Structures are given as C-alpha cells and as structure tokens.
C-alpha cells in the first residue's frame, strides 16, 4: 500500500488497532495526547473499548483487568505518567500478563518539561517498579519502524506473557512522516490464552491472576521462571542496526531520534573525510550486546549519544566489557542537538585518542 502521512501518535494508535488491540485505557498528558484522542474517535468503529481513566494509576490497573480477561490491551502516557504506572506494571509482570505500553518521553525529573527526551532509559530498561522483572522494550527511530513494532508488540507480549514498552521521544509522537500501517510483520505462533479469567463456564479449572507468593520458595521459583523468559528474550529478541561500521574507527551508539541526528552528523563527517559508524539499538531491553561482538577490530572507540545526561552509557559499558574507550555526548531537558554538535564531539574524541 502507498505510504500515507500520519502524525506519530495517531500512527501508533492505528498500529495498535491493526495489532489487534481492542481495549485502550489512558489519561491525558503531553506529548502523547493524540494517541487517546485518536482512539477515542476510532476504537468504537472496531468494536473495541476506549476509556479515559481518572488517573494513570487507574489506567494501568484497568489494563491489568482487561489483559487478565484475555483482551489485547494498551495504555500510553509520557514520563511522569509512566512513573505513576509503575505499580501496575510490576503487578502485570508479576502476574505474567501481556500488554503494550507506549511511553512518549519528555524531560524530567518531576514535572520537568514537555519537550522530547530519552531520560527514562533506566526506568524503562530496569523494570521501573519493585521486584525482579524486566519489560521487553523497544526504541524505534522513525514512524515506519514504530508502527511495525507497535503491531508486533501485541504478539510478543502474548508470546512472553510480559508487558512490552515502546519508548519513543516526544518528537516521534508529534512529527508526521509517510508510513504504511499495513506493512507485513513477521508471523508468529501465538499461544492460546489458557490463563485468562473469562469465566470457567464449567469447562475448565479456575484461573487466577495473581502476583502474591507468600512462601519464599514459591516466590523464588516464580522469579526464576520469569528470569528464564528474560534469558530467552536476550537470546531471541535483541534488535539493532549497524551502519558503516566496517570502515570506521569511531562508532556512535545512539537510538531513537538521537540516532537520526547522528546519521546527519555522519554525512557531514563523511564530507570531511571522516568515516564514522552507527550502532543503533532498536531493542533497549534486551540490550543488543550481540551487536558489539560484531564490531570489527578496526573500531577504536565508541561514542554514546543520548538525549539525557548519560543512561544508556552504562549498558554500553557492560556490552563493551572494557574493550574500547567510550565517549559520551548528551543534550537533555528537551534540548535537541544540531548534527554539528555531534560532529564536534566525534572530532574531539578522535583528537583525544590520537593524543593518548
């Protein structure tokens, strides 16, 4: 199908419907408002549920209920609202329910600002709530990738029985790009929802949705079962893109909007005769450690670029395991760098490495 122009937030709303989402619960917050506003208009046409909750806490618990009842459910919010959802998210992970959560990130901490940011990286990739759990988390860079991932997320959530978070920054939510919402996504086998509480109808044993395990041994067993899922995700769901790494001494590590700005910086550098590569995480949990193993030995340094004061850099250090020097460039609070700032950071890093 031909690509149509859509605003990021609306495209994510439509992608959710195409991914089978039939229940959306949310609460207004900038810069993601067009997701609920779009679904308020469109969800009824698909016979699904749209409800504005009284708070983010309520919305995520509505997700717990609807998802526990076996319906593909989604909520969306932005940073302070996602912080409030953490209680529900850890319960959902603990009860092994699928759901999709979109986080259109803005600057923090506290009320912060409303401009684009990647400052929730740690909250997204470390679980965020209490306990031993992780979210499957993706950070796409353009609308086509975002839309495909939102659709896939509903399958992945059910395969792993785990919440999937799509973390984009406010710019991706607000911008318009050509996008084909009907692009094919991988066909996967989806397990039956034998666990859903839909009423036994006298035909099966009772189902219970729960995250309480008072017996420590039982809770340890449960946590190990969850861990096995995260290990499987790390094996199967690492996603990344490597650009031009074969001919480059410096490889930039960046995701989302920052990766796009870095691509422009790479063009400018290329004109100056400096070859720079890009390692772009698409999944941020699991972090694409495999990509680092693929870097050729000609690479002499990594430059982590983020819209934060430096959060992903910790994962880069773990994946790099002390091998290469790691530099950092970041803008935060909603500031977006111009490509030239990254050009300067790369040139500075090269200079620094020569001096050593």
């Amino acid at each position, binding site marked *: 199908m031909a690509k149509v*122009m859509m605003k990021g937030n609306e495209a994510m709303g439509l992608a959710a419907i195409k991914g089978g989402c039939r229940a959306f619960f949310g609460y207004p917050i900038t810069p993601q408002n067009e997701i609920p506003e779009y679904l308020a208009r469109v969800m009824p046409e698909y016979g699904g549920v749209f409800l504005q909750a009284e708070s983010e806490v309520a919305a995520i618990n509505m997700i717990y209920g609807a998802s526990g009842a076996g319906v593909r459910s989604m909520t969306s919010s932005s940073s302070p609202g996602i912080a409030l959802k953490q209680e529900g998210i850890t319960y959902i992970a603990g009860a092994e329910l699928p759901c999709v959560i979109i986080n259109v990130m803005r600057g923090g901490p506290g009320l912060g600002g*409303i401009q684009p940011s990647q400052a929730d990286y740690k909250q997204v990739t470390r679980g965020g709530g209490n306990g031993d759990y992780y979210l499957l988390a993706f950070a796409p860079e353009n609308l086509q990738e975002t839309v495909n991932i939102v659709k896939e997320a509903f399958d992945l959530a059910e395969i792993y029985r785990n919440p999937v978070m799509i973390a984009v920054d406010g710019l991706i939510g607000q911008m*318009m790009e*050509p996008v084909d919402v009907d692009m094919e996504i991988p066909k996967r086998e989806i397990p039956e929802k034998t666990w859903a509480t839909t009423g036994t109808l006298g035909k099966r044993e009772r189902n219970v949705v729960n995250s309480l395990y008072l017996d420590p041994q039982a809770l340890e067993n449960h946590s190990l079962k969850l861990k096995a899922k995260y290990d499987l995700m790390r094996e199967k769901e690492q996603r990344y893109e490597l650009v031009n790494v074969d001919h480059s001494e410096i490889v930039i590590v960046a995701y989302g909007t920052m990766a*796009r700005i870095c691509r*422009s910086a790479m063009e400018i550098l290329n004109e100056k005769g400096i070859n720079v590569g890009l390692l772009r995480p698409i999944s941020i949990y699991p972090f694409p450690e495999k990509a680092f193993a693929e870097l050729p030995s000609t690479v002499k340094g990594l430059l982590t670029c983020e819209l934060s004061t430096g959060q992903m850099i910790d994962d880069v250090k773990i994946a790099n395991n002390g091998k290469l020097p790691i530099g950092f460039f970041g803008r935060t609070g909603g500031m977006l760098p111009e*490509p030239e700032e990254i050009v300067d950071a790369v040139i500075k890093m090269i200079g620094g490495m020569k001096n050593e």
Partner: protein
Amino acid sequence: MNSEKINCAGFGGQGVMLIGQLLAYAANEEGFNTLWYPSYGPETRGGTANCSVTISKQPVNSPVISKADSIIIMNKPSLDKFEDKVRPDGKIFINSTLVNKKVNRSDVEVFYIPVNDMAAELGNPKVANLIMLGAYLESTKLFEDEVIIKLLKKSFGENKAHLIPINQQALQAGRIFIRQ
C-alpha cells in the same frame, strides 16, 4: 532539487502549521521522503507556532533543522527568532503586512509579500497563508498548484468544497506577486 528544509513560523491561528503540512503532504504525493515537525505545548497557546519540514530524495535523517534553505515568516517575533536560522543564499519569505522590519542579512534572498492585505483584497482574510504558499512555490518551483488543490479537496470534503476556488486564487495571487 535534492533536498529542501523549511521553517515556517507565525502566530497560532495564522495557518503556519497548514503551510508546512501541505508541503509535506505534497512531497509524499510526489514521491519524496519528508518529515513535518511542529512546535507543541503551551508555547503555542495564543503565542507563536512554528513547524519545520524536510523534503528529500534521500531518507530524511535529522528532524532537527540547523540551517534552513527557506523560512516563511508570518509575524515579527518569528523573524527575530528565525532570521539567523537560514543558510547563506537561502530564502526568506516575509509577511510584510505584519512585519515592518527589514532583514539584516545581505547573504540571503528576501521576499516581502503583504499577504494579509492581499487576502483582504481577495475578500477572505483566512487565505493569507495560501498566498504565502503560492509565493513560496513560485520561487522554489517545488510543486504545481494542482497538487495542493488536490490535497485541499481531500481535506475539505464536500462541506467546504466551495472554498476551493478562493484557495486556488490565493495560490495564484502569491505566484503572480513573485513573478512581478
């Protein structure tokens, strides 16, 4: 054209977002890659609004425009904000009805177009933005009016179909102004 980066700025309500959106939609129709990005949030409430559009044969990378090829300025605060944001040899399109200031730079091509006066002459003050778009399109030769009109027809639907002719006239008026 390989690529064109445009900033478009003015008061909320002057239709600057629409100018940018029409350019982006037209670019998509004509097979270019494109990206439209608005300012958002309370800053747009009653105050200034702006959007940036990138149109390119190559995939669009940075959504952030550091130096625009062209800027469209609908009010005075926007000129102060964006004057330095256009590249040398770039173009500045100014709504001279509302901006009585001249551009300070000599390394850019400047067009002073009294679009509000011209819209009043056409009998519909709301089409000032379309006059500006017409002027921009004439100068850059980016798209034909037909592409824009087709898009407007789609978005107006039957209810507002009667507004098509005035919008067409507005685009033409902008073009004629540049040609003279």
